């Protein structure tokens, strides 16, 4: 994994200091990485493979909300209370990722305002882009009377 590829949005200094506390991990296809309501005490940055985020629907298969692929951050609920996952996550293929312990990263940030700010900006950016994607899908663009259906 090239460190520049992942978390490329972070400035080099903070990125290096963050990567120093990360560790490589992997999940087999089908692994439940976390469950809705579970304690959000870590996050991942995906290197290879795909992860589905899903919502538990009683009596049915979990409803998949979005697929995250390489380079994407998995999990941001660790950052703010109540520190619980609000979605479930499942590896849909062999996933290799960098894993970060929330407590460790937050400790690091306490003494490192530059990293703290850079990481927070990064996570807000991630949340923002997911929100935009969700809103775009709310438009039901490809529906028969959505914007742009030809003929």
């Amino acid at each position, binding site marked *: 994994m090239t460190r520049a590829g992942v978390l490329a949005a972070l400035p080099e200094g903070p990125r290096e200091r963050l990567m120093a506390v990360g560790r490589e991990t992997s999940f087999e296809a089908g692994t439940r990485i976390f469950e809705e309501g579970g304690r959000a005490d870590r996050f991942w940055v995906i290197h290879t493979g795909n992860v589905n985020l899903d919502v538990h629907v009683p009596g049915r298969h979990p409803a998949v909300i979005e697929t995250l692929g390489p380079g994407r951050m998995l999990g941001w609920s660790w950052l703010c209370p109540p520190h619980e996952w609000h979605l479930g996550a499942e590896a849909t293929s062999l996933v290799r990722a960098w894993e970060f312990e929330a407590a460790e990263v937050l400790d690091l940030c306490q003494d490192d305002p530059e990293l703290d700010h850079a990481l927070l900006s990064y996570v807000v950016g991630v949340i923002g882009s997911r929100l935009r994607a969700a809103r775009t899908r709310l438009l039901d663009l490809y529906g*028969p*009377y*959505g*914007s742009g*259906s*030809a003929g």
Partner: protein
Amino acid sequence: MPSATAPPDTGSAGCVLDRDGMGALVRELRARGRTVIGPTVRDGAIVLAELESAEELPYGWGVELEGGHYRLRRRADAAAFAHSAGPQSWKNFLHPERVRQWTADRGPDGELTVRAEPPAAASFAFLGVRPCDLRAIQIQDRVMIGGPHRDDAYRERRTGAFLVVVECTEPGATCFCVSMGTGPAAQPGYDLALTEVLDETGHRFWARAGTARGAEVLDSLPRRPADEATQDRARRGVAEAAGRMGRTMPPVDLRDLLADTLEARRWDDVAARCLTCGNCTMACPTCFCTTSEDITDLTGDHAERWRRWESCYDLDFTHLPGGSVRTSARSRYRQWLTHKLGTWWDQFDSSGCVGCGRCIVWCPVAIDITEEAHALHQESLADRAGAADGAP
């Protein structure tokens, strides 16, 4: 047929026709099989209609024009062409309101036969085309037959039409051809150009030919060589008309102005007044937009395609499966004005406005294209000044 003994009266000096000569012109054009269309008084307006004789010209009639206002008025003299644009324009004849384009029949075996509408054998002579309207015809030429796809029906009518331009000596209060560079003097493109002169020496027309067929017609009329006095008087009349325009456009590149003011506050102001009735587009001599209508007869095996005028103010004009693109009055007025003065250049390499003033006269709430252009110009000047003040 030009005669070797005829006086050289078709050069730049031209010749002079009197009122009888005008009568002979109409007779000659009709004798050549042409349908002569010209101005005549009807229903309280000077309209364009078929003329059987020059006596139907509006001798002695003028018009009083203002925003949303059109009145006929008697003149003290007997001038025939001392009036400016009426409710119609030549597009009513070259690009008629409703045209059948093709018919289709379905046979018993389901076979489909489509027949193009045979071109109408129209042979018009337009008498009294004002210079601004000559430009309007040339602008529609670019749209209808100047692009990659030609409209055969238009081409047929247009190439068959004989154009007698009459220069403008009496602009109306809503005229601004000088700003648009289209008048009041005749510019190339006519078969014959006339300038009406009325003074103590009489009522006459200074005539010049612009084409061989124009010269041929002139040669067959009772006429006399153009004297200096008539020519001077005619030129002076046209020059003075240039100084009596009722309206002006702001002295800027209108294409740039419109491209830079798409988000101007002025559009909200005009939208509060505009009824989106589309009168301006119907009266405009260059507006060309149409829609197509498919109709079938009762058997269901005969279908026809008709094309009819449509206006960019119609809500359905921009219909897409997801709804119309331009729903607000603001966006529809903006479309019309930016197209007319700005994006027409991008599409057809000319302005879409000739300064005839019809859109001002026939707007029921007197929206004035020149006033709107001035307001956009003032707003952009103010914004630029504001930006300069705010700069560090």
